[in-house]
């Protein structure tokens, strides 16, 4: 019975007294999926956990500087490598692949399974289009790749605005200041966005995979190991898939993981 609010703040004090919560650093794009994950963890007797969301870059840097997180759920693999340069990692694995979605308040013209980026871009007229920052945000890098693959990069570039992360990109579209945004599919599927924005998935083939990697830091507690094991488990994979992530066929461990209790 781990009733945790969407933000994971409510590691509720009644039982956190006897069981020290696992500190998990999670990339901001995981916000929408986290409630479901936490619920499942609770049912599986894993946890309790306390989640700190943040930009993966910030989180990685903080962990590298010794932040007391035991589990790091990054938005890409580069951040985990960065952490690995500074601290020993006990285990790491890709737990999900991010998918991009095109969202727009103005509607999409036609209801399509996958996006025809050229048409979508054309439909925005001279409106602004928001993407994550292609310099560092994993979804921003992917969005740029997708736009380039669709040969619309040069057409749209002058009209692009760069958000710190996908959530902010979505916000730009949500407030109506941007005509459209490329955000994560997981965000696009949240009730808040679905209620006000039309969305369409962007084909994964258009961009390099957004491999979201999880790391278990050296010296982690048993509880943390259990959290790690749960995230890379098929049960979690189902939840990720439902939330709009692509799931790595069999979760492929980069290093052998210790046997988990689940």
């Amino acid at each position, binding site marked *: 019975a781990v009733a945790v609010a969407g933000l994971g703040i409510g590691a509720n004090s009644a039982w956190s007294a006897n069981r020290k919560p696992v500190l998990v650093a999670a990339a901001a794009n995981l916000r929408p999926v986290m409630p479901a994950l936490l619920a499942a963890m609770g049912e599986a007797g894993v946890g309790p956990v306390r989640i700190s969301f943040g930009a993966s870059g910030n989180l990685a840097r903080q962990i590298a500087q010794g932040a007391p997180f035991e589990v790091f759920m990054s938005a890409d693999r580069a951040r985990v490598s960065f952490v690995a340069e500074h601290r020993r990692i006990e285990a790491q694995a890709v737990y999900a692949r991010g998918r991009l979605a095109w969202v727009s308040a103005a509607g999409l013209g036609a209801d399509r399974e996958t996006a025809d980026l050229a048409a979508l871009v054309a439909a925005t007229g001279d409106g602004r289009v928001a993407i994550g920052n292609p310099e560092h*945000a994993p979804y921003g890098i992917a969005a740029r790749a997708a736009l380039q693959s669709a040969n619309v990069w040069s057409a749209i570039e002058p009209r692009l605005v760069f958000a710190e992360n996908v959530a902010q990109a979505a916000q730009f579209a949500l407030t109506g200041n941007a005509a459209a945004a490329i955000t994560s599919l997981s965000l696009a599927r949240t009730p808040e966005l679905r209620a006000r924005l039309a969305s369409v998935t962007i084909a994964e083939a258009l961009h390099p995979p957004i491999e979201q990697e999880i790391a278990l830091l050296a010296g982690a507690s048993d509880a943390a190991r259990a959290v790690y094991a749960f995230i890379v488990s098929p049960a979690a994979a189902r939840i990720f898939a439902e939330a709009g992530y692509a799931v790595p066929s069999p979760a492929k461990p980069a290093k052998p993981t210790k046997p988990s209790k689940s």
Partner: protein
Amino acid sequence: MPVDATLTSLWLAGLTALILVPFGVWAGRALATAQFAGKGFVETLVLLPLILPPTVLGYYLLVAFAPANPVGQAINTVFGGSLAFSFEGILIASLIANVPFAVQPIQRSFEAIPDTVREAAWVSGLNGWQTLWRIELPLAWPGIVTAAALVMAHTLGEFGVILMVGGNIPGETQTLSIAIYDRLQAFKTAEAGLISAVLLVASLAALAIVQTTAATGRTPRPRP
């Protein structure tokens, strides 16, 4: 070095100070000399932009700028286009965020001018404007310089609000502080450090100039 971002930052800091300091003189003087009912309330209101986290402030500005709502429509009409993601937009955001820094120090320095000096100016035939220009402004000078320095420094360092309403467009809304943040996020630590150093040295130089101007403008304290 991100030349564009540097120029944007300097331009933004300069314009913000240029607009806010006269406003601060007007508002600070009014708060210092006038007695009216809701004065305490207004004084607190002035501090409001400080209380809200910059990103939150930025978010609400973004909502205000949206073409969908009446405020946004009005803005669109006035400025002939949306303010979001434009230099005008971050300028307005920066103006709002810096109001406390402009008003407070100037208000205090006007409060420190004795009434009898003001009255002596009137009796000498100076009208309101001349009194302001020739007597009050020179005496309030230290406070005005403090305000200018605080506003400029804070604008150079402003991040959250501008990130929120600016959309990080190079040459338009990407400021130096956002450029540094981007470098840090991209793990280009050395580059971030370099830009930070340049920002610091440039700002310190600018502030030193401002403070020196203050010192020459500042009247020595009276000897008994």
